[in-house]
Each structure stands twice: as C-alpha cells, then as structure tokens.
C-alpha cells in the first residue's frame, strides 16, 4: 500500500517526519518497505513575478525579463515564447540545484548577464512542458516557496499491510493506528472549496429510489448492503491540482474529476466506490443479483468476461453493467458527456469476492479491499464525503438523499475481555484504565460489565473477533518492547525426540568422516515408471501446478540429484567429487492419494581415493567399486538395515528377507570429460526408529593365534560361501576371518584368509587351533571342493 506522508499529516493535523513514521508503523505491525521522496528537491524554487519583458538586444528569440523574486528585481534572460509581464512563474536563483543535479550559475547569454532562470515543468521534473515556462495560477506574493503553492513535494511510503488489516489499506486507517500511538485524534481534512453538507442516506430493508433510479438487492448473501447517491448536472473534466497531487503521491494517475473522487475515497477511507452514468443505465434501475450462467459483460478494461451464478452482478433493467466488487462495465462508464452520475457504495461478501476474482483471474484495487473486508458501518460517511467531493470539483447537486438498501441489518455482538486473562497471557498486570485507553484510542468502544470489559469492535476491524485479538491490540499499542524477558523454570516436554534425527546425525558424522560432503538437492526429479533405485515399479508422483516441466514430478530417488551434481562439478573442472545426501523421496500410490514418502541416504564418489602426496609419485589411485561397496556397508549400518546383498546387472542390490528393495551400490555410467574418473554411487532406505545400542564386551586377556590360509576356490564358488563355512566350523574359538589376498594362476583362483583364534579364558595351543582348522578345511573340501594351497 502506497501512502502519502502529506495525507497522513493532514489526517493527524501535524507535520510528520518520514523515518519516524516508518519506525512507528514498524512497531505497530505495518513495516515500511521503502520511503520515496517526491519532489523534495524543489525546496529552493520560489514563485517570482515578471514585472517587465524586453527584447534581448542581441537575439530575436530571447527576451530579457525583469523578475521580482520577493527581495529585489533581477534581470533574467528567457527563451520561452509564453513569458508575459504580470504573471508568476517558478524561479531558480543562481546557486539553486535543479532536479537532476544541475547547479545554476550566473552567466552571460549573448552578451547579457542572466541572474537565474524561469523554469518549465520538465526542468522541475513536474511533467511535460505545455508551451514554455510553467505559468503559476496563484496569488501568492513573489518570494513564496513554490512548494507552498504547489503541494507536490511529499514522501511516498510503501507500507506492508498484512491480510488481516484491511483498514490499513486506506490513509485514515494508517493515521488511526499512528494517532493511537501518538495520542492524536484523526480528522478528515476539509475538501478545499467545499460548501454545505450533503444528505444522509435513507436506510430501507426493501427497495429504494434515488433520483429516479430504483435500487434493489436480489443477492443479499453476495451484497448485504448497497448505497447509491445521484448527482445531477456534473461537468466531467480535469481534477484540481491538490487532488492530482494526492493521486500522484501514491502513484496513481488522474483520470477525470468524478473517477478521481471515487479513487480518493478508496485511498482515504478504504471504501471502493463506482460511478455510473445515469443516462446509460437502462430502465433507471440497479438490480444487484447473481450473474447468469454464461452471461457476458464487457468490462472497463475492454475485456469481455463470462459470469456465473457464484458472482454478483450489478445490473440495469436489461443487462449486467458491472461485476460487483471487481470492476465496472464499459457500457455505463462515466465519460466527458456524462451529466448525471449514480454513485455506488456497497459492501460485498469477502469470500464471494475471493472466489469471483479467482474465477475471473483478475484482481483490482476494489476486489483486493472487498476480499479483505470493508467497513460495513462506515459506508454512509464514505458516500457522503465522496458526494461532497464530486459536487465541489465537478459541480451538480443531489436530487434527494442517497438510498441505503440494507435488507438484514447486522448487529455485531460485544467481545468480553477479562483483565485477568490479559495478565494471564501477557505475563504483565496491566491496569484496567490503561487497557481501556489503548482500545478506545483505536476506535473500540469499551464498557465495564461484571468485572469484564464489553468491547464493541468498529466496522473497520473485521479481524478482531475474540478476546485474544483484543489482547494483541493491547500488547501492540503498549509496545512489544515494553514487556520484560524472563525465563521461568521449565517443565520437561512429554514429546520424545524423533529417533530419525539421531540416526541422520550419525549418518552425517560417519560420511563426513569418510571424506564425503553433505549435499542438498531439490526434491523434484524426472518422471520415472520403473525407477531402478526404488526397486518395485514405482510411478513418479506428479505435481498439479508445477513451476516448469523440469519440476513436474517429485524425486523417486536421491541419486539422480547427486548425478546432476557430478555433472555440474565436472563443468567447473572438479575431478574429485564425494557427496552424500539425506532426504525424502516419493512414489505415487494412486490418484488423490497421499504418496509414499521415504527417507533415504545416498552418495556418489569419483576421483582420487586419497589426496595426492609427494611421496607417492605417479598417477593418483582412483575410487573403484570396492570403495563404494564399503560405503554401502557403512550406509547399511547407519541406516539400521540388513538383508541380502546380491549382484544384479553389475551392481550390488540389497533386499530384506521378503525381497523388498533396501538399497544398491555400484558404478554409475555417465559420459564425462576425458579427464573424469569413473563414478560410483549408492543409496539405501533409512529405517525409522532404529536404536543402535552398543554393548561392551570384556576385553580379552588371552593372546590370539593367527593363521593365514590360502585356498583354491573352484569356479563358481564365492567368498561368502567360504565365509559361511569358516564361520560355522570355526566355532567359538574363531574370532575373525578376513580376506587379505586374491591370486589367480592358470585359470585357477586362490583367496587367502587371515584367521584369528582366541579363547576367552586360556591361552590357545597350536593343537587346539589345528583341530578347528582341520574341521573347517574338511568341510570346505566336502561342501565346496575348496582345497588348501600349499606354500
């Protein structure tokens, strides 16, 4: 909301300072985003009177003017054709800085000294030049500051208004909040030149007639209250300077005096109004009804729109002439030819306006305000002020009092405020007098009732509906900073921490310790039908209203985002890439169903296994599949999952005992630059609610016995099968069995294990170990045909 500082000053009857107002508004809950000075640079320009005009002795096109600047008469050379003796113009003395930064110097023009300059509108940044210098229509004596006769200098404040405060969308509302803080009353500034009062509207629950126009409401739900005034004999034309300046100061264009008057009311009182040309209202009727299905209307913006029965149409006897609360129609628009105006001042239901503007895909100043709720009780005042304004600036008169069609008058109930509840919530005892003071300064009426306060909420505050809303008003006006900060003893929370948070923290510790960096990718991904990494044929969940085609689906895995990150890193010539990510992935369940959501841990590695060191000359050793296999082991451990790892299409795939996919690891085929290293990735499902209890085991006091055995593994026999037998036959004495070597010769494969034996309570003798080892070897031979390789 653009607000004019001058306007606010006028409402509060005091000169306001822009940064002070910005601070006050911030502390009232309506922060000012920006303060824009308007024509503040005209402060040194004064009104000067040209006393005499002579021809320039050396130039036909120039004149020599004798200019009274209020102190003396100076000679000024002027090139404008419209300069005339006896008239007043803006004058810049020598030394004045003009808008744009030019500093005026005394100089000779064609041999004649010119002392300053008579200015055109464009030289003062006040618009396009008409026919030379800017003639001032004023009686102010020479020497008066230009800004005193031309009220264009102002500050434009961009006020951020939250959706609960429609009243702050008008200057009066902002001034009211400021006034409550500054203890100043708000008074509407008088309309320059206004004479006499206007008629109060006549309220009726049935139909009303004003100036021959019959007003009726059919759609009471969409439009509970409709007022209309008629002004006959207006002259549509330009608006006076002060009104144009007001509109400019908030960034609005002047259209004509009648339309400007309605805009003025909107900006001042937050009451949108619409003016119809009475002559163009067929059958002299205004009927407020629901739109017909498929009914068409050509609107003020020139577009034709189609109505339906959820919308409110303002109609004449034959056709819709406006969409209620949104925009008027082209047909009944006020034009230069208009002499009789029908002025609409209505209240439209916020929810209906919201759905209408959404359906019509158009938001206007009016719809924005009606949607947030206008002042149902303040309509008469707004209407009368606008009528007065139109009569003052466009002439005309009212044939009779306006009509106020109000079928079901609303009585808003009082809200009861308990002073002890104020203390209970705010933590500070606030005297009742002080509470009353805050509320009445905002326009609430307060009366004590049985130890409570009965508070009546003014129409402009539709957001205040319960006790807590009043308590916020009290805290807001008292100032949030006036409350102390005091911690009291805490009672422990009954809510346990989510175990997933500890599991994810462990995963982060482990993987950063392994040299990987935590990554964060967006949660959107390409469409998949059989995403390899989610195992089962899981369909991508689509987004109904995506920002772009690339973000039309939710990710089904994390690895895709990491794969893209690898590409991005290659693009900036990074070869050594080690990333992991923890995040949610999604799979579609069905239309209109909440998709499956799963936490995952994923990672990629590519490039050197270790940072290069000078002692190890030669090419770096890059990561290979065995590195990612161990990352899979780590991931399984921290993710709290176990299962069977099998090989599938050159990758390791992990499934649980029911065959459900839990993760994978392996090489990722990517086309990188020639210097890039192969890329390996993994991804696992994070199990929720894992408790990873570590248990201490007694540290052995006996020595171990190590035996290295090399075995010939026949074709088709895998290490896991051997491990299983070693584990089983090794019995209690076998502490560990690690593969430490692989050797191939003449098509035969030998794998070597280091076995460690230990008894917890005695020192093992070689023969104890031999007994076990022989059992192992015997079984290996019988079951798998595995033989010991003799050294």
């Amino acid at each position, binding site marked *: 909301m653009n607000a004019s500082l001058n306007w606010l000053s006028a409402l509060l009857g005091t000169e306001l300072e822009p940064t002070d107002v910005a601070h006050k508004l911030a502390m*009232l*809950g309506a922060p000012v985003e920006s303060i824009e000075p308007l024509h503040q640079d005209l402060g040194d320009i004064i009104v000067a009177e040209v006393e005499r005009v002579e021809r320039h002795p050396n130039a036909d096109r120039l004149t020599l003017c004798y200019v009274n600047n209020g102190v003396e008469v100076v000679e000024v050379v002027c090139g404008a054709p419209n300069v005339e003796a006896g008239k007043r113009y803006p004058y810049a003395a020598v030394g004045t800085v003009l808008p744009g930064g030019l500093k005026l110097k005394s100089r000779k023009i064609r041999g004649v000294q010119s002392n300053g300059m008579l200015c055109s509108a464009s030289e003062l940044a006040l618009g396009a030049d008409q026919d030379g210098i800017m003639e001032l229509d004023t009686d102010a004596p020479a020497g008066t500051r230009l800004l005193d006769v031309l009220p264009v200098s102002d500050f434009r404040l961009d006020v951020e208004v939250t959706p*609960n*405060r429609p009243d702050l969308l008008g200057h009066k509302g902002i001034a009211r909040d400021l006034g409550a803080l500054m203890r100043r009353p708000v008074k509407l500034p008088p309309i320059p030149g206004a004479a006499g009062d206007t008629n109060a509207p006549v309220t009726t629950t049935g139909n009303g007639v004003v100036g021959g126009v019959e007003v009726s409401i059919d759609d009471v739900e969409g439009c509970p209250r409709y007022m209309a005034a008629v002004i006959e004999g207006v002259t549509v034309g330009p608006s006076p300077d002060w009104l144009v300046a007001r509109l400019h100061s908030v960034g609005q264009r002047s259209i004509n005096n009648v339309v400007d008057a309605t805009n003025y009311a909107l900006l001042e009182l937050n009451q949108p109004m619409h003016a119809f040309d009475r002559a163009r209202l067929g059958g002299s009727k205004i009927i407020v009804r629901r739109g017909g299905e498929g009914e068409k209307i050509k609107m003020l913006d020139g577009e034709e729109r189609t109505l339906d029965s959820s919308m409110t149409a303002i109609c004449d006897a034959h056709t819709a002439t406006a969409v209620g609360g949104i925009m008027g129609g082209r047909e009944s628009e006020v034009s230069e030819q208009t002499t009789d105006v029908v002025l609409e001042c209505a209240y439209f239901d916020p929810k209906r306006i*919201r*759905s209408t503007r959404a359906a019509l895909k158009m938001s206007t100043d009016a719809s924005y305000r009606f949607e*947030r709720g206008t002042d149902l009780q303040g309509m008469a005042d707004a209407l009368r002020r606008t009528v007065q304004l139109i009569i003052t600036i466009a002439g005309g008169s009212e044939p009779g009092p306006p009509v106020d069609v109000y079928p079901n008058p609303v009585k808003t109930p009082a809200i009861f405020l308990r002073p002890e509840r104020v203390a*209970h*919530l*705010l*933590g500070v005892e606030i005297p009742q007098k002080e509470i009353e003071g805050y509320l009445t300064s905002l326009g609430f009426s307060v009366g004590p009732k049985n130890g409570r306060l009965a508070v009546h909420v003014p129409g402009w505050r539709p957001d205040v509906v*319960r006790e*807590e*809303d009043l*308590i*916020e008003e009290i805290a807001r006006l008292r100032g*949030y*900073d006036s409350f*102390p*900060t005091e*911690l009291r003893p*805490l*009672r*422990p*929370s009954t*809510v346990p*921490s*989510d175990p997933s*948070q500890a599991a994810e923290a462990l995963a982060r510790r482990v*993987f*950063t310790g392994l*040299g*990987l*960096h*935590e990554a*964060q*990718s*967006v949660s959107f991904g390409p469409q998949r039908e059989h995403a390899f990494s989610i195992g089962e044929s899981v369909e991508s*969940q689509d*987004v*109904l209203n995506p*920002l772009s085609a690339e973000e039309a689906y*939710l990710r089904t895995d994390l690895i895709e*985002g*990491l794969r893209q*990150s690898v590409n*991005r890193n290659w693009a900036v010539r*990074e070869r050594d*890439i*080690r990333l992991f990510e923890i995040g*949610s992935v*999604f799979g579609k369940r069905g239309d*209109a169903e*909440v*998709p499956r*959501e799963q936490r995952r841990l994923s990672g990629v590695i590519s490039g050197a296994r*270790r*940072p290069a060191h000078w*002692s190890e000359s030669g090419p770096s050793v890059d990561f290979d599949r065995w590195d990612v296999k161990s990352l899979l082991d780590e991931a399984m451990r921290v993710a709290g999952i176990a299962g069977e790892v099998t090989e599938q299409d050159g990758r390791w795939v992990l499934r649980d005992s029911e065959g459900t996919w839990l993760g994978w690891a392996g090489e990722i085929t990517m086309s990188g630059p020639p210097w890039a290293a192969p890329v390996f990735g993994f991804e696992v499902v994070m199990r929720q609610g894992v408790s990873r209890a570590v248990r201490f085991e007694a540290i052995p006091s006996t*020595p171990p016995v190590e035996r290295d055995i090399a075995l010939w593994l026949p074709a088709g026999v895998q290490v896991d099968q051997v491990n299983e037998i070693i584990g089983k036959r090794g019995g209690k004495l076998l502490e560990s069995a690690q593969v430490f070597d692989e050797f191939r010769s003449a098509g035969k494969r030998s794998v070597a294990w280091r076995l460690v034996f230990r008894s917890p309570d005695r020192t093992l003798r070689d023969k104890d170990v031999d007994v076990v080892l022989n059992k192992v070897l015997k079984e290996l031979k019988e079951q798998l045909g595995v033989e010991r390789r003799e050294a």
Partner: protein
Amino acid sequence: MATVSPDDQFEAVERTLVELREAGAPRLAELKVELLGRKQGLLTQILRSLSTLEPEERRAVGQRANQLKVEIDAVIGQREQELRAGESSGEDVDPTMPGRRSWRGAIHPVTAVIDDVCEIFRELGFSRVTGPEVETDAYNFTKLNIPLDHPAADMHDTFYLSPGILLRTHTSPVQARTMEQHKPPIRIVVPGRVYRRDPFDASHAPVFSQIEGLAVDEGITFVEFKAALDYFAKHFFSADTEVRFRPSFFPFTEPSAEVDVQCQMCRGSGCATCHRTGFLEIMGAGMVHPAVLENCGIDPERYSGYAFGMGPERIAMLRYGIPDIRMLFQNDMRFLRQFVE
C-alpha cells in the same frame, strides 16, 4: 633361561613384530638385532632351544618359529621400503614438506544451522521431531486457523499434488500432529523441508528448510515467549545481540510477532544488508492462537503457548555471507569444501 616357556618367547617376538611395523629407521635397526641378533636375538634363542624340547613339541615350536621368521623378514623389508620412500636420505630431510592427508567432508551449511538452532532449544527443553513433507489441506491450513477462503492463505503459494494433498508450505503441520498425540507440556522444534511455488532467484527457492518451534504448557506468557526467543538469539548470534519484537500477523498465532536481531554485518549502525535499519528479520512467531489449540483438542483456557518459525537457508546466508540461495542447492565441491570444520 630354561624357565622361560616357548609361548612366552613367542609372545615377546610378536610384540616386537608389532613395533617393527611402525618403527623409524634407527629403531628398526635395533629391533632387527633384538629379534634376529646372532647371540641374543629372540628368535635366534627360540631356534637354539629347540634341541632341548620333546620331539612333538619341537616340531610345533619349530614350525611356528619358521613362520615367524618369514613374516619378520617380510615386515622388515616392507618397513625399509616405506622408510626409503618417506625420506629420500637420512641426512637430507626437509621438515617443511607437507604431511599425508585424508579427505575431509563437511555437513551442509544449512544442516549446521539447523543443528545449532536445535541444540540451543534443546537447552530450553525442546525435543526434536519431524513430520511428512506431503500434507493435507487440513494439517497445512485449516487446523492452523488458515481458512482456504481467506487472503491469509495467499501468503503460501502452494504446490498441490491432487486436490487437498499438497507439499507442506511450512513445518507447522507437525505442531498440530504433535498436539493431537501428546498432552502438554509440549516443547518441540521441527526442522524439515518445505515448499513454496516461488521460482529460483538469488533469495527464493521452491524448496527450502524451516525450523518450527512450539511450546504449550500451563502459564506460558508473552514474557516467557520473548525470553525464550531472546535466549535463542543471544546464544545463536552473540550475547550482546539486541533483539527486537514487532507486531505482525500469522493466522496461527495471536499476538503475532516478527523477531529482528541486530544486523550482524554492521552491528546495528545500518548497512546494505539490513536496508539501513540496523536490524534483520529472522523469524515469525507469536503466542499460539486459541483456535489452533482448540482444533487440536487442547483447552486454551488452561493451556497457552508460543510458536516460532525460521528459515535456516536465510540464516546460513547471513551467518556465512552467502550471497545467493541457489548456491545452497548446487553441491559445488568448491562451495561445500569451505564448510569443513
């Protein structure tokens, strides 16, 4: 000598073997003598004593001693090679040559902020909970007192998956979920991913994180609310950080507040980062709206509380001076490396 059993001797050999693997050049030479010295070498002694043993034991001990001999030779050879690689020659060591490094990884700067925030609130008794990223209108909006037909809903530009099912626009739904399942006292912080239909630019992202907090108990007041967030700000930023509370509007809090902290760049004197105000907005907060308590089955006459929400990305950008939010999603190694602690 005869009192020493072969097992003890073997143990001594094995201890020495362990030391051998790590020994520097001078010690390596000593250990070689200790093990294999022609007179007193440990292994030499074992082999020499074989003749005093029973035949059966002699064979076993002999076999083990020979195995050890092979291993010792191998280890000595390997160690000598390592030492040669490490130092080209004994007398010409340049100690300023760089040491051997390992890769180091770092948690994401946004995670670092989330962890720090949650840790401070843990000190105030808040547990750390999470919730689903896909939500319903009910949990994301209506239970939180945001009617969909009110302009307040426009504060959230929402991605919908199907009618009524959406990507949560804040982690506040977890508030409602928690209050439905637990009785006060409740103190939770909820970090997680949220979604808004904002295209990527320097300060917006369609996906980002949020930390939501909620405290509900008997007798929680505006004073305590201010105190808790003041405690947080002073512990997260610095003890002398000025904290400012301004009225604001959120449908799920009443009274509502924006919480500003003194600008960390200019210490409050005004700069470009804080738009010359000396303050930076870091969170939205307020006392829990009674309608939200009612919607979750908690009696607002008996219980009160406060809630707050903040954006870890924004805080990370402020804390580390990151100029563009997109950097947080690009996973550029040159960026991530900077956060190694």
